[in-house]
Structures are given as C-alpha cells and as structure tokens.
C-alpha cells in the first residue's frame, strides 16, 4: 500500500471545497434536487485538481467501478462491505458518475483543509468519463464489469469505448489491480496486455435454465479482437458473456480466479450463489498471472441476497472479487451482502396506495433483455400489469432506436396488460405492437408520468403487485412523483 503524504495547507483546494459544500447545501435548501453534481462544477472552476488532490489523500486509496450495466449496484455492495469491515467510505452513492459528480462526492467527505473523512473511496464511473476519472483518481483497484451496446448517440460504438478504455488502462502503473469479468471477451482482450495484477471472475454453473441457446440480437463483440473470427461459446449466460473461445486462434476465456456457481434464483426477490476461489488471491505478492500458478485449496463462499436475477449474480461475483482483491474476509462479505438493499429503481419495491410497485430501471438493450428474462423466466410471459416509461432526454439516450434491439417478442405470451408512458411512450407502444402483443393488452397512457402512474395504479387490484420499467430520467420523474405523495424517500437521502 502506498504511504500517504500528510496534507499540507492548500488555499486553492480549501476554497474549492468550501464552495462545493455551500453549493450542495444551497441546492438542497432550494429543493432543487440532491445537489449531487453542481458542487463539483463549482469546485472544478476554483481548483481543477480537486479530485486528484482529495483522492490522493485517501489513506487506503480508491476503487473505481466501471461497466455498461451493474456499476451502481456493485459500488453499493462494495461500499457496504467496506463499511462492515470498519472502514469509512467516500462513495458517489447517488449514482452521479461523471468527473464532477465524483469530485462533489469526495468533496462532501473532506474537511476544508482537504483531509478526507474517509479511509477508502468507492467510485462508480461512467463509461465515457472512465479515462479521465482513472487519470485523476489513480485508483488501487479497477473493477470492469461488462461492455454492452448503450446509448450510441452519447457513447459512440462499442469498439470506440473499448479502445479508449484500453488506452487509459495502458497508462496506469503496475502496482494496481484490475478485477474484470473474464466471461466478457472484450474486457479479456483489453486487459490481456497489461502488466498489472489481474483477477478474472465469471460464472461456472451447469444448470441449463441459466444458459442461452444462441447470442441474442442485442449482443455485441462476439468477434475475436485478436483475429476477427466469430467467437464460439461452451456456455452462454447473458448477451455475449460466457465460456467463450475463438475457433481460429488459441484465445479463450481466461482462468477464473473467482467463479459463481450453484445459482438459485427466487423470482423478483432474492438469489443465492456460491463463489468459489482459491488462496492465491490472498497472497501478499500474487503472481502477475494467476492462471500460471499451481492449484491451491478452494474456498466456497455461500451467499444469499435480497436482490433478484442472473445479472445480479454477475454483480455479486464482481463485488466479491474486488472485496477479495483488497483482502476482506468471507464473513464480513457474506454478512454485508445478506443485508444489502437495492438502489433506487433497481428492483426496488414501493408500497403505493395499497399496491406493491416493483421498479426496475431499463437503460439499454442488454439490461432490458435481462430484466424481461428475470420477470418471465418461470412464467413464460408477464403475469402482472406492467408500465413501461420511455424518455429520450440526454441521460436516457436521445435515440430510441434501441427499443428495436430488445427482444419484446417474449411479452407476446402471457395475459398481463401492458401500459406505456414517457416522452416516447408512443414508440414503446408501437414496438410492443410489432412484437406481437395483442391489441386488447396494449394500453398507451399519457406521456406525463404522474398522470400515467395515476391511471395505471387504478387498474391494479388492491393488494396486488405491478411492475414499472422506466428509463433513467423517467425513473427520476417517477421517484419525484412517489416522493411528493410520500411513498418513498427522496433518493439523495438513501
């Protein structure tokens, strides 16, 4: 571990921190929201190096978590585990994950002299901001969860992101640890050339219920980045994630240092998984390439969580991999995860007018597919009324084309009524029509979320459950509506 310098007086940093704190307080008092990013904007004007300086003073460094899907959940799991371990954690918990949001979160956990009131940082990073966040934060651990097609109008093509990440990773010093999803061929390829300690995680479960028969339409990156051939899979778990190999060159899924196995899913409520790993992970000087070492004794870490779905199994294994990389013990990990609660909109249950709403954020084709898979895996089609809320603001992706990459054809089965709302709710209704959803099940509602929620809830019998699937800004809008009505807390207090 690096020895941290003692903080010297830094007037510019202090001024920036003071301004950030005042801005945050002012925004919250004005009722304008959580003040999760604006303080970072203000502070950045005064001291552009604030993030670097504050991150550098964290005694135990920082962990940066990146990936198209799962990064919010994984960061929260990690923060909970680290707190259970007895460390104070600085974390951009509200999900504000651009450079300024990260700076604001760290500023909020620093004294005016720039001394952190935290031991370690957990930083969720946006994909596009990842190179800049990593450059400024200089983390000790980087966790890469997956790369999927997402918001092409904002992020560009998948190859573009992969290439930028690759360049950013190449500039990092050798003493950091990269924890990555070995089931993702793209992440395997971009981490392969690195001289740093690398820890791969993934799934190893023989239950066919969790295997896909073929690559879904939304999958990207199923070509070998080394030779260009189409990849094959011994087992495919989700999108392009699985036990992959290249039929032309010798590349294949790397040795997994941590493996999720013996998976049990319990509907929209819970999951169990066993994470297998061996002692080589805990070695004080691990070999650079764990795959070249002799077999060591296996450990089986049994976990039970109150979050659902196969995609959350990946998130759990990822979070455990990072926790083991920094040496947390199994008991702490299991206890923290058993108490874990989903973040707002991530399969959160809300009681509203005597009904239970289960809210699941949908933001890209792979995430939407996995949510639909979870909701229908045991029942065929949907069995409870469902409201889909699609917006097209910047944070949602302004292009709604992605709805045509999602396999809504799954919903043609089942009898549950389907409702649509949001700025582009009409596009969603049209998509469901072409997916083969019968006209008498399809109910477009007002584009205004509050009105739509009102009409929707009336159709749900009292005491029953309903699903709400919103895009990012639709979820925030829904959340505001529910908070105004007293059904949920405002999200920045979570």
């Amino acid at each position, binding site marked *: 571990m690096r020895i941290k310098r003692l903080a010297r007086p830094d007037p510019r940093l202090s001024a920036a921190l003071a301004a950030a704190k005042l801005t945050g307080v002012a925004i919250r008092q004005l009722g304008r929201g959580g003040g999760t990013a604006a303080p970072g904007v203000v502070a950045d004007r005064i001291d552009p190096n604030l993030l670097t300086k504050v991150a550098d003073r964290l005694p135990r460094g920082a962990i940066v978590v990146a990936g198209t899907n799962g990064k919010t959940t994984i960061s929260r799991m990690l923060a909970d585990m680290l707190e259970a371990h007895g460390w104070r954690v600085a974390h951009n918990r509200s999900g504000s994950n651009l450079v300024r949001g990260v700076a604001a979160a760290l500023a909020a956990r620093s004294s005016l002299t720039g001394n952190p009131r935290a031991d370690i940082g957990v930083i969720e990073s946006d994909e596009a901001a990842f190179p800049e966040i990593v450059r400024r934060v200089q983390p000790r651990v980087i966790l890469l969860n997956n790369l999927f097609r997402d918001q092409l*109008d904002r992020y560009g093509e998948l190859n573009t992101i992969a290439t930028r990440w690759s360049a950013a990773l190449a500039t990092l010093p050798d003493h950091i640890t990269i924890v990555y999803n070995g089931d993702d061929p793209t992440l395997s390829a971009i981490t392969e050339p690195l001289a740093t300690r690398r820890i791969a995680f993934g799934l190893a479960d023989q239950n066919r219920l969790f295997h896909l028969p073929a690559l879904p*339409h939304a999958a990207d990156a199923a070509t070998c980045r080394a030779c260009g051939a189409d990849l094959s899979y011994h087992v495919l778990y989700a999108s392009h994630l699985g036990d992959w190999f290249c039929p032309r060159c010798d590349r294949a899924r790397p040795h997994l240092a941590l493996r999720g196995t013996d998976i049990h899913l319990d509907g929209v409520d819970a999951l169990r998984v066993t994470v297998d790993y061996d002692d080589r992970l805990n070695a004080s000087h691990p070999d650079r390439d764990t795959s070249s070492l002799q077999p060591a004794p296996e450990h089986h870490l049994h976990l039970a969580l109150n979050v659902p779905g196969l995609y959350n199994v990946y998130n759990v294994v990822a979070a455990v991999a990072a926790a083991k990389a920094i040496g947390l013990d199994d008991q702490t990990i299991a206890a923290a995860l058993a108490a874990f609660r989903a973040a707002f909109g991530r399969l959160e249950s809300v009681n509203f007018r005597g009904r239970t709403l289960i809210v699941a954020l949908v933001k890209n084709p792979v995430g939407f597919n996995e949510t639909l898979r979870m909701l229908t895996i045991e029942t065929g089609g949907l069995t409870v009324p469902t409201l889909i809320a699609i917006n097209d603001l910047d944070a949602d992706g302004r292009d709604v*084309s*992605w709805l045509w990459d999602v396999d809504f054809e799954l919903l043609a089965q089942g009898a549950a009524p389907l409702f649509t709302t949001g700025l582009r709710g009409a596009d969603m209704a*049209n*998509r469901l029509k*072409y997916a083969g959803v019968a006209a008498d099940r399809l109910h477009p509602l007002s584009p205004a979320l509050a009105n739509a929620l009102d009409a929707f809830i009336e159709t749900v019998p009292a005491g029953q459950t309903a699903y709400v699937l919103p895009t990012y800004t639709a979820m925030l809008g829904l959340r505001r509506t529910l908070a105004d009505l007293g059904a949920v807390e405002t999200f920045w207090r979570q």
Partner: protein
Amino acid sequence: MHLTIGWLYGTKMNIYGDRGNILTLEQRARWRGIPATTVEIGLGQPIPAEVDLFFFGGGQDQEQIAVSNDLQGTKGETLKAALEEGAAMLAVCGGYQLLGHGYRPHEGPFLPGIGFFNLATEAGPERFIGNVVVDSPFGELVGFENHSGLTTLGPDLQPLGTVRVGRGNNGRDGTEGARCHNAVGCYLHGALLPKNPQLADWLLTAALRRRHGEVDLPRLDDSHELTAHASAVERALRTR
C-alpha cells in the same frame, strides 16, 4: 404470394435498432395474409435469386471494412443487377454509403461500394446526431441521424427528400437520402419504418410487384404508428 426479405450482413450490420425495419416489413406483410421470411446474407454467402426486398443496415467501422471487401466482385455485381432490375431495397447509414461509390474515412483505406447509387461519401469533421424530419414524396418522414459521413449525390440522382429538421446527407444542400428504381437509401434510424408505415408499404408494394404484378395492399389500422410518428416529430422540433 410470399415475401422473401434478404437481410444483408444481419449480424455485422445491425446497430442502432435497424432490425425494427425487418420486423415492420415482416409483420405488415403477415397482417395482410402474405407469409414473409427473412434470410440473412452473411460474409461469403451469395445473393439468393428469390429475394424480393433487401435490407442493408449500418455497422461499426471495423465491420464495414469486412462488408466492403465482401461486396467486391461477383457478389456486388449481382446485387447491383438485382436492384437495376427493380428489386426493392432499404439501406440505412453504412449500408446506404456502400450502395454508392464508396466511403473515404479520415484514416485508413478507401472503402469501395457497389456504385448503384451515383453518390460518394467522405468522413466529415463533425458528427450529425439528433432527430430528423424530412419532406418526401412518401409524405413526412421522421427518424434519428447519427453519422459523420458527408454524402454528395450525383446530378442525376434523386434525393429521398429535403430536411426540415436536422442535417441530412451533408449538412449543406438540405437533401436527405437517395432514391433510384425501387431502392431507398438514407441516414434515418429510429427505426425508420415502424414510425413511417407509408414508406414500409411502398417498399412492400414495389417488392411484390416485381414477381406478382400490381398488388393492392389492404389498409391497416396504423394508429400506434401514427401516434409514434407525431410524438417523434414533436420531439424533433423541441430538441433541434
């Protein structure tokens, strides 16, 4: 009567939800009692003679290189001949560019096209991203553009329409897309056809006419389509 759709490079050139165009053509044929099947025409696979209607979507840069190579020689010539004989086609973005003379990127080699459309494309300095509204002989079209290619049409080539909102072929001359025989090329994602059913039906009619003579497609209830169209136009006016 039967409709065969040929999806050029479906697994390589399938970003931006362009599959929505295939789903729309299939469903709108089936809803009128015309069975429809889609065959994928991948790298190294010949152009099947039975295709009535082609779709050629956009892909990532790397994939477009492989596709450009694959279309050189017999395959590209066969496709061009089919289009000249009246086969129907919708090409979007990368597919549109490769139906022209080719694409000149900022770096790397020129990507030759098949030269069916008399147009050429070069990489431009900025990326055009946003909602687009086009006035065309098919009525008002709405879609979403996301490209940095600047496409210039030859003097004899008809554009698909003129841009009311958005940048279009090149951001300069107000044109969007191109039309020749029964082929339409453009930069419109969205996907295009689900929200512009009149264009979908024109393509279906043109595709069936070639083998079955004039067909009169029964009208469908397009209320969902037209509501989606109207809300997309409204968003276009608000966002650009």
